[in-house]
């Protein structure tokens, strides 16, 4: 994942809106992909980049709100809704379902750009977090069953001798497990390991 790059998906059934938004975002130096329907968007192979989806509320076939529900969870980009109708109930629904912004056409460019930048920043953050977590999990998966048994005692601050007593083994063995854990988890210090364990939900 390249953190300095980003992409904006524009999903609107009106070609004029697609064209103009594409031009506007390109001129602002953003990468843009446009789609005329939800199906096109879902089929598209999305690059692993911080992204934002500018989504029209009224679409032929699957509506914007339906698409939002469909892609909720997972690693879908944050959504900025744009609409020509803009009734209160659907805006409330959209915002409750986690939309970044709900803009009425004709919208203010600056507001739109702000929303898009905000969405991209949020997605970048989320992606970083997700990447970090998957990295941690990958490393945790490297531990042997015995090492996973030892880990909670280590991070809860017990001395090797105490841990050995608890597990009914020798202090030397515990020390070896501990060294291996530190290496496999790529922890620079005990404090670092404690933090990682916290993120993984181990205490």
């Amino acid at each position: 994942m390249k953190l300095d790059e980003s992409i904006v998906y524009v999903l609107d059934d009106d070609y004029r809106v697609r064209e103009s938004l594409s031009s506007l975002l390109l001129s602002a130096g953003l990468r843009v992909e446009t789609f005329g329907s939800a199906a096109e968007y879902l089929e598209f192979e999305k690059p692993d980049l911080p992204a934002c989806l500018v989504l029209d509320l009224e679409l032929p076939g699957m509506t914007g709100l339906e698409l939002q529900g469909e892609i909720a969870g997972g690693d879908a980009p944050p959504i900025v809704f744009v609409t020509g109708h803009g009734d209160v109930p659907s805006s409330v629904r959209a915002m409750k379902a986690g939309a970044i912004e709900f803009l009425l056409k004709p919208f203010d460019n600056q507001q739109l750009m702000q929303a898009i930048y905000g969405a991209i920043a949020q997605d970048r953050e989320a992606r970083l977090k997700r990447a970090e977590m998957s990295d941690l999990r990958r490393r945790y998966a490297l531990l042997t069953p015995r090492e996973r048994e030892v880990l909670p005692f280590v991070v809860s601050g017990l001395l090797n001798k105490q841990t050995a007593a608890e597990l009914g083994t020798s202090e030397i063995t515990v020390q070896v497990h501990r060294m291996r854990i530190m290496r496999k988890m790529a922890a620079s210090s005990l404090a670092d390991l404690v933090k990682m364990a916290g993120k993984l939900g181990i205490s």
Partner: protein
Amino acid sequence: MHRLSTVQAYALGLVACVVAFWPSLVLDAPSSCFLLAIMASSLFGGRGPGLFTAGLSAIAFDFFFLPSPLSLSSPPSSYLRFAVFVAAALGTVELIEARRRIEESRRRSDDRYQLVAETATDAIISVDENSRILMANPATAKMFGWSASELIGSPMKLLLPELSELSSRAVIELTGIRKDGTSFVAEISIGTGSKGKSNVCAIFVRDITQRKQIEMELRRSESYLAEAQARLSRATQIATVAELAASVAHEISQPLSAVVANGQACLQWLSAEPPSLTNARVAAERILRDGKDAGEVVRRIRALFKKTALEKSALNVNEVIDEVAGLIRNEAARKQMSVETDLARELPQTLGDRVQLQQVLFNLLLNGLEAMDSIVDRPRTLFIRSKLESPNFILIEVHDHGVGLTDPDKVFDSFYTTKEKGMGMGLSICRSVVEAHGGRLGTKPSQEPGTTFFFTLPIAANVSI
């Protein structure tokens, strides 16, 4: 004549016979005396008592005045006398009875006529050939304020100064003058006839002031109704505006958003390092295009909702269809429906109010789209066709593939609606608009599913401006 009871009548018959007996003996004139008794009995008692008296008289005559009562030895002349007497007696009874009947029936018919005249609410006045009043019924007195006795002998002009000749048989309206000088609207009809030597007329007068008033009120309420209808039609226009407001806002906001975004993009392309003139030009061209789009939408909407009276001008029906179809296409696309047209080329022009015809078509198209809302198993296509129906009329058809009509005759009634939020005015107004143009609006049966509405418009050459 005072009528006697049956018993009294027969008693009278007996008494008359007995009374006649005495002078018969004294004067020896039995025939005349008994006939007198029979006459009196018939006259006052009727046919039955008359015959009764005749019987008694015949017996008395036979016993007392013929030589040997009813014996075979009597001379033939006495039989003849007896027979003549009986014939005269029966003849008298029957004659008197016949006359009584004639009088009775005349009295009854007089009674009936009198009843009619006296209970009539119309004034009935009979006048002689000099227009002098011969008779007036009670309604006349009530209507004009004069008593019947005051009226008899007065000239007819007293009541109806405008009445000139009495020969007219038609119903006419004149001013009636009451005794107190006030006037009222009178409806007059005159019947003429002759009675004996002189010509008489019956004049029937009806006070129609109230009816006139009701008629005037009716006319006033009719014009009020027309006004209300006009207002209602305007209200429906507004309702249509409200229904369509969302769609219209969408239609305008699409090109406008594009204009704004393109404008911003254009500026950004120009201020880039180095500036991208190609991209800026493309953006500027799109601004022009989309700006015109938005302007077009506004122009169409303005044309659609302008408040005008019927302003007829020569126009091309196909242009009207194109304009309205253009407006409806966006709405149709939003509902994933399509609008197709099949317009006859080189149609003659019609004479009509463009805005109102747009309204009619708009209504029909919108109904068509709504009818297809729930359809999923067949193409949702709205079909508009124009063609020359006959040398004088252009036909416009709108066919949808929707749910169809359950009651095609009712849809044109005011306040009949199949829509949840409908007022039921759309089609009835459409029909009045089309009819105001000299055309017809209706539905057509069709083999395909859905509904076909059609309307006709006369071609311009056949309409006088």
